[in-house]
């Protein structure tokens, strides 16, 4: 039987969840014996296979139109979609900006910071993704597995991935359940 294909990507997150994934250290060798690691931000392949993967993993919430497109594509191409980390599960730290208007946050970031000089202005170009309210992954696409944590512990990620690799939906409880 062919090894199940796994792909991942990051959205409005800090890459910390992928760093935590790498913290599984030598266990990654065991993992690649079980799965076929395809497109990820830390491998050469950048887009999930068109013919689809078994497990798609997304880190980060959705805060602009590009993230929305990436999330929808991952959803379309994966059988099981995993929300990895607090940003993907809840919106996380980036969602703090939802307590303000989008314009307020952009002005704060590009015009009002102490390091901005008088020419500071909010970037606008048709090439740029359009910022939106920060949403949890499940607000945009259907999510099958939630792995909360900021970041989820390497042990938790390893547990979840090895369960998925063996065809089971991971059940997080006790010490494996952490929202941080």
């Amino acid at each position: 039987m062919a090894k199940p294909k796994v792909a991942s990507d990051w959205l409005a997150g800090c890459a910390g969840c992928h760093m935590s994934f790498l913290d599984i250290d030598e266990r990654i060798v065991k993992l690649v014996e079980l799965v076929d690691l395809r497109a990820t931000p830390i491998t050469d392949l950048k887009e999930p296979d068109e013919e689809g993967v078994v497990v798609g993993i997304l880190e980060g919430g959705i805060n602009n139109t590009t993230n929305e497109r990436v999330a929808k594509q991952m959803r379309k191409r994966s059988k099981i979609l995993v929300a990895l980390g607090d940003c993907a599960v809840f919106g996380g730290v980036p969602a703090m900006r939802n307590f303000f208007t989008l314009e307020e946050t952009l002005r704060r970031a590009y015009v009002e910071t102490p390091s901005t000089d008088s020419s500071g202005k909010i970037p606008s170009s048709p090439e740029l993704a359009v910022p939106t309210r920060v949403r949890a992954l499940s607000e945009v696409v259907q999510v099958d597995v939630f792995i909360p944590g900021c970041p989820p512990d390497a042990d938790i990620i390893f547990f979840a991935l090895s369960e998925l690799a063996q065809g089971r939906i991971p059940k997080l409880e006790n010490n494996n359940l952490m929202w941080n």
Partner: protein
Amino acid sequence: MVNLTIDEKQVEVKEGTTVLNAARQAGIEIPTLCDHPELTPYGGCRLCLVEIEGAKTLQPSCTMPASNNMVVKTDTEKIREARKFILTMIFSERNHFCPYCQVSGGDCELQNSAYAEGMTHWPIQPNWKPYPVDASHPYIVLEHNRCILCRRCVRACGELVGNFTLGFEERGAESALVADLGLPLGDSSCISCGTCVQVCPTGALIDRWSAYLGKEIDVETTNTICLGCSIGCSINVLTRDNRLVRIEGDWDGEINDGVICDVGRFHPMNEDRDRVLTPMVRKGGALKAATWDDALAVINEKAKASKGKIAGVVSTRLSLEALDTFNQVCHELGVTAVSSTEEGRSISQAFSVLVKNSKPFEAKFNDIKDADCYLTVGEDITKDHQVVSFFVKRNLPGGAKLIQVSSAATGLDNFANFSLHVADDKIAGFLKDFSDSVRSGADYAKVATKYSLDEKFLEEAGSAVKSAAKLAVIVGSRYESADSSSIEEAAASFTFGLKGKLVSTKGNINSLGASQLKVNNPVSVSGAEIVLLVAGDERLTQVQMKKFEKVPFLVVFSSYSTPLTASADVVLPVMNWMEQSGHFLNFDGHLLEARASLKADENVFSNVDAFGKLAEKLNIKISSTWESALNAPSVVEISK
């Protein structure tokens, strides 16, 4: 008794027990958020819903009284679904994002409840409405965005502390915790006891001094007593890597039932004095670091030359063991009377009464906790010995009367039914005249005129005393100018004449212990060539420090650098209250044990060890005789 079935378990409980408490007694856990064992049930969060046979809907177990033949189920699919829904609604109401919250990761009851239900996410996002943050208070931050409206803090403020600072305004999602009628917490009538912080289930009320220093799971907890005053409240000291993180009241504490004041909870966090970490000896006009051996040798030499012209003064914040050891050293040196930093104010006057009564005459604190009429004299218990005032104030809404006799306005004026302002030097006379009037029911007019009080007011106060079933008189010793022993005697006569209970607050944690060991004489250093002053970690007042200004050779045992250590000839570093263990006799005669929660620097010794080293240098033999304090005649029965 009531018999009911919970999860197929037969349970027998007292009538009036709630289903929640019945379940607890049977060892069945029902999750709750608004419920707290020390507070009256409120039924606000609905997390404790249970199925009761015959009831159409799920019922909150915290407010439902158990009744005979009730059949309760606490763990069905329907209940679990309801809990998840309730938690989802709470999470989506405000800002409950865990990664940036102080209490996340063990200290948050809301988060723990979600874990217990196996929630990996919440299905409903919040509506992103920001609420204000009130950081106006020196010790407490009120973060409305984390509030789940459980009102534990409001109940604690009223029911436990009797302060009624906290309340709620508005309705529904607009509901907001307010101090007074909407003042910033820092400008409100809050007395900073921090009980609200201790009961808050989320990060809505956080202690800014301990924030982010460590969670419940990271810290070590030492159960000990507060040495802030003579009450000796039971506390838990939380430490991490030998640093103080937080102090909490111990709910199982016999004396304080869990409440503590700002002196116990926050002042130790706010310690701003520098530590003395090495012995110092004055050489050529300046204090120079020295070894213990060298410093003790200097004292030894001086002591030999002084021919017994030595005085010993000791802080009543020291343990019985330390007081006893110091006493022995002093006696061997020929010191006639060892005096305490309190200048003999707190107990000696009570002793004159003791001599006449010859057996313990003061009541225990527990005896007055349920009194229905209180009279305070000689002290503002909202300032000193605050926890006493908590127990008085919490009884007032239930109808207890509070009469205050004082010379000046105090914090009790806002609470007292009757504030009788009488000059200090007239208090003793007033108490006698007042008690005569109370007993005879006459002459109020004469007494009122004599002390410039309103006659009707005085008569009302008198009838409150007369109709009291349980009268408690709390007497302090904070007089600006008066013979305090005459006031104390008058207070005792007043109390016993009216068959009430008398409690005197005394001063420091070991004031009673010091008097039992007879080291409580008034300070007298005139004629002494050497003064051994054991300040320990006590914060001496200007007046107290002034007494030692002209001492020819001053030896100070101190934990902290103070103006006194700066002017001393020899300074010896000793541990502070958190670093050493020992026994204390609190104001109502309980023998209490303090346990060390922190480790001291290697050159800093406990008071007992420091005196031991001094005794060794002076060739004095000492033995442990502190337990004699427990058997000496006392104003209040000693509970060992």
